[in-house]
């Protein structure tokens, strides 16, 4: 069995930190064939773990299938139907032309990113309330997640996980100001939430139709080629310039 240091050396090779020769020297007790097999195993394992994450990501990102509606017996006459259609049309016109009724969500909708959340592990969380809140988040019941997370914050429990999921929940509930307040600190600190907090802050500014803030919030993302939302930010900047 390989020890921790040996595995670490293989990981360093896969990450491009050391050469194959340096790896072979560090693991000189392995034959070249055995070394190649260990490298392949490690590479496969890493890909499989990432594939599991990608599967969850796709499940969250792709539109859900909506079952085709079953055919139903007509319950209203054509006259009643016409009257209903006219009422709906009036409501639509009122909505579209009513001052301030637009949510300005064109670009927001185009760039919306729903963070799926991390798997919530009861065994890892000694706080049942936290588990409860994150479960509501992962079920996309953001209003309940907000009330649970805000309650935890009020009790003095204030960590990055709460700040991030509270901010994300506010965003998805269209409370952009509160989302920005919750996410701002995370955008400045290096950590697992930083990149996503930066992008969600951009989305919050888009919700507010505050184009000046959007431009300033996308600039650090555009400046970082390795940022997971780099291409989205570049595209958004291009869209804003049009």
């Amino acid at each position, binding site marked *: *069995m*390989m020890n*921790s240091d040996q*595995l670490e050396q293989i990981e360093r090779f896969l990450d491009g930190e050391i050469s194959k020769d340096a790896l072979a020297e560090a693991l000189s007790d392995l034959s070249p064939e055995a070394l190649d097999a260990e490298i392949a*195993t490690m*590479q*496969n*394992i*890493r*890909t*499989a*773990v*990432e*594939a*599991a*994450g*990608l*599967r969850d*990501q*796709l*499940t969250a*990102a*792709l*539109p859900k*299938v909506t*079952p*085709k509606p079953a055919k139903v017996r007509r319950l209203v006459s054509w006259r009643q139907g016409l009257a209903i259609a006219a009422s709906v049309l009036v409501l639509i016109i009122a909505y579209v032309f009513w001052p301030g009724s637009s949510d300005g969500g064109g670009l927001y909708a185009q*760039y919306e*990113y729903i963070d799926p959340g*991390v*798997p919530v*592990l*009861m*065994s*890892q969380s*000694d706080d049942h309330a936290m588990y409860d809140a994150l479960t509501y988040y992962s079920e996309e019941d953001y209003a309940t997640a907000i009330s649970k997370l805000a309650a935890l914050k009020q009790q003095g429990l204030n*960590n*990055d*996980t709460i700040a991030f999921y509270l901010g994300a929940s506010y965003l998805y509930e269209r409370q952009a100001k509160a989302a920005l307040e919750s996410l701002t600190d995370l955008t400045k600190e290096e*950590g*697992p939430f930083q990149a996503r907090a930066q992008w969600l802050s951009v989305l919050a500014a888009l919700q507010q139709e505050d184009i000046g803030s959007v431009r300033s919030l996308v600039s650090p993302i555009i400046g970082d080629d390795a940022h*997971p939302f780099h*291409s*989205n930010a570049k*595209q958004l900047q291009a869209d804003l310039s049009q």
Partner: protein
Amino acid sequence: MTNQEIFEGIARRDNRTFLYLYKEYQAQIQRMVEKNSGNAEDALDIFQEGIIALWTNIQQGKFQLRDNAKISSYLFALCKNLWISKLRKRKDFKSLEESNELSDEEDTEMLLAEHEKISELEKHFRQLGEACRKLLSLFYYQKAPLKSIAAQMQITEKTAKNNKYRCMQSLRSLYQQNAAKS
């Protein structure tokens, strides 16, 4: 999006690219599945599996873009073959309509073999305990540093490192047991 942009978007797991592919090709894949004993839900599963298969092969360095070969043709061919394979497993395979859109160039046998290998390993990963799954996912999928993983899991950084080694060993042993069987 160009072929190159799609390739790069898949490689970096970009949702915008996935949504573009969905918008452009899902209807075509759904038609193929629905004509052959499946429904819209099956089609979405197959589309998702096709994306994962493409990503896996890009990640493993097994799939390279060739001139005059459209990445969408590979995606469709992968989805079609994944659907055949699923029907065979369901013992529901009669005959899948041949598609003129596929040519010999889009031979996906090798790509599917690689995907199958990684999918098996992914199943082993899902058999691990919750703590292991979370730790490995944070480290390899979310690329979180051990320090922040330790903070999230409320353990020390040293424990996080030791646990990561232990979890990797569990996964390696499941993988090797499976390899020995086959």
